[in-house]
């Protein structure tokens, strides 16, 4: 099953990357003659209100969604892990300060916070990435801190000190890598959440601005047409979100097993 998930992600990612080359239609250009056409051989996923080919739009949208999710996750992971590692290893005031900062972020419902930041900073792509990243930092921070608390009591942490390592190297070279396996799993799950957040933000209009295609925005548009019977406008982008997020989850589970150091050297 996880193999299937990997395949899905690869397909999404590769097609997203190659989108401008492989997609026959222009995602942004309206073609009023063919508005709201059902799925057919010409338009495999039908067209939207402006006559734009859905399939093309969905694949292009993949670029945006994946990019944002990846960037946000990467930033949150790096920042959160470093903060968590330092906090966990040093304890005391450092720990208290950092953890209270993280508490503050977590006190807000994450979507509201993302909304707030996006609204405050403006709808640019980079701001959305920042907004999502900030809401995700606490997850990694706490996770890594917890792992660090466990790992720093291990004898090899003491051994690293005995051997003559400087503290910084002990934290980052020895201990942090051992804190990472749960982080990787969390990251893949979080990628899914990030995609959902972008989609949701766009759905309510705070995310990517039209005419740029984005799965959430497309789903939002499509929602208006369910009643009138043009089911394809929301179904395909919605499915794209679901399939991608699910695949990330499955890959995350599989990755955790792979990253177990017991697999190394086998």
């Amino acid at each position, binding site marked *: 099953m996880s193999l299937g998930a990997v395949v899905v992600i690869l397909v999404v990612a590769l097609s997203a990357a190659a989108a401008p080359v492989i997609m026959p239609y222009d995602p942004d250009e309206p073609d009023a003659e063919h508005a709201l056409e059902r799925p057919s051989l010409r338009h495999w996923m039908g067209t939207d209100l402006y006559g734009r080919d859905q399939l093309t739009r969905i694949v292009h949208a993949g670029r945006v969604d994946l990019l944002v999710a990846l960037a946000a996750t990467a930033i949150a992971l790096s920042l959160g892990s470093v903060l968590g590692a330092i906090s966990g290893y040093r304890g005391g005031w450092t720990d208290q300060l950092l953890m209270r900062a993280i508490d503050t972020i977590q006190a807000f419902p994450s979507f509201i916070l993302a909304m707030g930041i996006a609204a405050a900073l403006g709808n640019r792509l980079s701001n959305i990435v920042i907004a999502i990243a900030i809401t995700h930092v606490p997850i990694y921070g706490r996770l890594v801190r917890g792992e660090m608390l466990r790992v720093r009591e*291990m*004898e*090899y942490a*003491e*051994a*690293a*000190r*005995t*051997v*003559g*390592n*400087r503290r910084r190297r002990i934290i980052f070279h*020895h201990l942090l*890598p*051992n804190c990472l396996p749960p982080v990787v799993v969390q990251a893949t799950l979080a990628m899914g959440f990030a995609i959902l957040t972008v989609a949701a933000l766009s759905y309510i209009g705070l995310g990517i601005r039209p005419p740029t295609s984005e799965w959430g925005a497309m789903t939002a548009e499509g929602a208006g047409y369910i009643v009138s019977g043009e089911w394809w406008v929301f179904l395909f982008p919605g499915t794209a979100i679901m399939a991608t997020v699910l695949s990330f989850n499955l890959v995350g589970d599989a990755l955790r097993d792979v990253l177990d*150091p*017991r697999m*190394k*050297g086998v």
Partner: protein
Amino acid sequence: MHFPLRSWLPGRAPRVVHALDGVTLHVDAAETLGLVGESGCGKSTLARCVLRLIEPTAGRVRFEDTDLTALGEEEMRRRRRDLQMVFQDPTASLNPRLSVAATVEEPLALHTELTTEARRARVDEVLDEVGLGAGLRDRYPHQLSGGQRQRVNIARAIATRPRLVVLDEPTSALDVSLRARVILLLRELKRRIGMTYLFISHDLSTVRYLCDRVAVMYLGVVVEEAPAGELFDHPAHPYTRALLSCIPIPDPDAVPERLTLTGEVPSPVDVPSGCRLRGRCPLAQPVCAEPVPVRLVAPGHTVACHLA
């Protein structure tokens, strides 16, 4: 190397755990000093104080004319080239993500100026010395047996040819037959390279086999110190005698004179005044409440007891 020191680990304030109290010991070059005692006696704390993994509250650790306790952090770090430790749990003391070669190479990378090639060669040399083939260099800890892991520990400790190696219960976590091999390895290294060991253990028979001199600790103080044979054949302190008499001897006809201590070890927070064994010692006298003198009962054999 001298270490007179006093270390108080803070318990819940204002109670204080007297982990070590006025311990003075010395280890001569190429000698093996055994440190024995039951749990709570402070021997592990002492080991960590010697290496300054824990800071002593008072006192000094003098190593070859240098006062280690007075060194700054960076200087102390550099000194670690000469002071290494082998830990008790062979699995927990190896970083599961580092290969054998990486683990053993690290001290060389940190403390020597050797090139990568030279370090590689030295790692292979050390792996041979401890009886692991150089072929195991790319393995990871989970692919090794307990005995092999402990050898890696030892390899890491001796890679830089330290002047002193502290061994904290290096064989407790090992099976009986592995124990014998590791002990023999340690003895062999001592013979061949002239290693100086501070050997901490609760296993007295191993201590007898490996150590030149032995110090017995109880509740944070040294109660007796003597050359190994002398200590085991003519123990002077009641605690030592009690301890020895508790050890079952693999000879059904041996009937050891059982000196029993009553009660349990008191908590290191409420330490009795004078002799710490006072409440449990069957030979206790009123004078035992006074500060305890250290007496010389035979050449090289000291005892902290009023009645010696």
